[in-house]
């Protein structure tokens, strides 16, 4: 056996073992997620949410909305938040150094006037606040105007400093919440005193119809880039997060929609302003703090409440977003490296973090290197084409299987896309994705990880929003 043959053989063997491990873990996650969702759906609609809505002791929620150049969607987003079906809601919008009309639109629409607000100095803020305003028409609506330091986390911290309610809900400026979303996601905090954080499903809103900031008709868009992201989000939320949550090993609560006990976040000092993955950083920080204190706690995921968010519609913007996310994950894993494999941190330490190191951090490098060696082996004739074809076929089918499993979970549980053509569209996207998006995504992730290793600087992502079709 020549050196090249040995390299190709061993690489192939390592790849097979690697993918086998990945797929076994993924199947376990699908099974856990399916069980958790099925068990949830077995409960009929009870009085719970109606009573929470009507009860004066329901915990108040401060919704924190960081906005940076969001003039296209900010009005619809805030209007929808004001219409949320929840008894006590405070909305804190932070205009983080926008150069567009974000603040002006809010000031005009909601009669905002200058006001002094009490701030919690336990949370630090870098960019200076230069104005705080309260709406005359909606007293629960507050606007904080501050200088940007290029980080979403600093904007969230500015909001956190003035938030007054027991629970804080972090969302993005373009997030559109279902009217009952807060009622759903608050319920775990009421039912279980140990719950410190809860996340909900986030799905792409592109292509859907909106009325007064509320999604009234959901559909899978024609744009393949967006369609592929719908599939990704279904995989990540319905399978990934439901599965990890069922083991109390949830690593990420999406920055687009997450609810936390305010005191816990404040005790942590707010979000890490240096982190690009501030949402995951917060959740892992909570796990570490609570375990180090020896306190019993739970971080949960609610599969039903939905937050709709506009996702990138072009490959260029998507690439930047994914590189940034990947860099953030790399930095997070380095920051919390002592927790990796540490049984003190239970499921998160011994399962979730090692999974993210093996399959999210190293994964892109293995894929890119593996593909290069397999192609070399194939071209040099050391890897028989029949075997290369069989492994390629198996890889494509296994990747598609993961997506199809997520589509099935969605169909069995919530069936949020009512048109038959939407399901067909999701299925064809699942079958197409391994041929193009998978490679691009691996490349973007690899670039992000390299940036993390180099400690490169990165700020707010530029997201061009198209807005929604209004009814």
């Amino acid at each position, binding site marked *: 056996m020549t050196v090249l043959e040995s390299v190709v053989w061993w690489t192939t063997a390592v790849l097979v073992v690697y993918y086998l491990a990945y797929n076994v873990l993924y199947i376990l996650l699908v099974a856990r997620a399916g069980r958790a969702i099925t068990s949830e759906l077995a409960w009929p609609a009870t009085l719970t949410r109606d009573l929470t809505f009507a009860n004066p*002791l329901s915990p108040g929620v401060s919704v924190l909305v960081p906005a940076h150049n969001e003039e296209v969607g900010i009005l619809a987003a805030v209007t929808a938040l004001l219409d949320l079906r929840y008894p006590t809601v405070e909305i804190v919008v932070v205009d983080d150094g926008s150069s567009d009309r974000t603040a002006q639109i809010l000031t005009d629409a909601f009669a905002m006037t200058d006001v002094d607000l009490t701030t919690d100095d336990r949370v630090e803020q870098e960019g200076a606040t230069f104005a705080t305003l309260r709406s005359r028409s909606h007293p629960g609506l507050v606007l904080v105007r501050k200088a940007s330091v290029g980080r979403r986390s600093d904007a969230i911290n500015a909001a956190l400093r003035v938030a007054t309610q027991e629970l804080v809900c972090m969302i993005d400026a373009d997030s559109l919440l279902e009217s009952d979303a807060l009622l759903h996601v608050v319920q775990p905090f*009421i*039912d279980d005193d140990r719950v410190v954080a809860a996340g909900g499903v986030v799905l792409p809103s592109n292509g859907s119809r909106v009325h007064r900031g509320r999604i009234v008709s959901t559909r899978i868009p024609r744009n393949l880039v967006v369609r592929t992201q719908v599939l990704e989000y279904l995989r990540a939320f319905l399978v990934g997060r439901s599965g990890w949550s069922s083991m109390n090993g949830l690593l990420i609560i999406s920055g687009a929609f997450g609810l936390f006990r305010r005191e816990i976040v404040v005790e942590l000092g707010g979000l890490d302003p240096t982190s690009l993955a501030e949402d995951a950083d917060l959740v892992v920080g909570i796990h570490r703090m609570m375990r180090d204190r020896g306190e019993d706690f739970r971080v949960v995921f609610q599969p039903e409440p939905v937050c709709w968010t506009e996702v990138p519609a072009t490959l260029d913007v998507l690439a930047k977003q994914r590189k940034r996310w990947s860099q953030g994950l790399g930095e997070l894993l380095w920051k919390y490296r002592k927790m990796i494999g540490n049984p003190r941190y239970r499921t998160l330490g011994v399962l979730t973090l090692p999974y993210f190191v093996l399959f999210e951090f190293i994964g892109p490098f293995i894929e890119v290197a593996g593909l290069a060696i397999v192609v070399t082996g194939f071209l040099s004739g050391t890897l028989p084409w029949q075997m290369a074809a069989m492994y390629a076929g198996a890889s494509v089918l296994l990747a598609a299987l993961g997506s199809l499993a997520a589509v099935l979970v969605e*169909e069995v549980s919530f069936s949020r896309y009512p048109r038959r053509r939407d399901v067909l569209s999701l299925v064809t996207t699942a079958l197409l994705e391994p041929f193009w998006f998978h490679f691009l995504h691996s490349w973007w992730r690899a670039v992000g990880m390299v940036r993390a290793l180099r400690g490169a600087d990165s700020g707010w992502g530029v997201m061009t929003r198209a807005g929604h079709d209004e009814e």
Partner: protein
Amino acid sequence: MRYDVAGWVLVAAAGATVLLLVVITAVRASTIVANRRHERERSEVLPLLLEITDGADVPLPGDRRAARALGTSAAALVHKVRGADRADLAGWLRRNGFREEALRGLRARRPARRAAAAELYLALDDDPGPVLPLLSDTHARVRATVVRALGEAGAVTAIPAIVEAAVAPRGVSTSTAAMAVVQAGPSSASAFGPVWDSADPRARRLAADVAGHLGLADARPHLERALRSEDQTLRTRAAVALGRVGSPLSVGALETALVGVVRGSVEERAILDALAALDSPREAR
């Protein structure tokens, strides 16, 4: 051998893909059929429900599926309406044997069924006795559902049991219990009964919170006694509650409590706030 492994993986993945595609198609088809059936049943049931809420004694349909659809819809609706409509619906459900069915459901094997049965029973009967054993059900969600349903039904006599469930090792969260008691809406502190003398300070804390929130004037002696408790949290909650109840008669008890309190503590803040609420402000020492 390597070809065999690759071949097996390929065949297994292809088989699983085809299977998933078939299942997705079948699920979508069954969802469409189920939705159509629900629509049809809804259109049949709606006029009958309107007749029932108008006071008519609509007979249970002879067809089993139609009878089940009407019963299920009426049972769901009885929680959502108030006043005469609710009384008419509850009366119709009782006359057609749904109270007895709910009683049987309390012993069902499936937790979700027990919870739904408890909700329905409490909507149809004033006596909470049969559902109280479910406060120590093995399933947490059943316990929480029962506590909420007791609150929604205004079962004031069940308040001591609800508070007890909040401090039991296998009970409900304090938030759930407190919200249920508020929902039940007791008009007197006596509704808490033995809770005021409970050896568990957590039970008395909950009673103090709720009494303060509801402004129960006759809770004042219990709250003033709680100011002398060894439990600092209870003392703090009692001070807050006295501020909310708002009786000037509590000023003396609060001033006495202020004497021995740690300076700068949460308890001191609570007492000072309560005194301020009673128009008897004091400076922080």
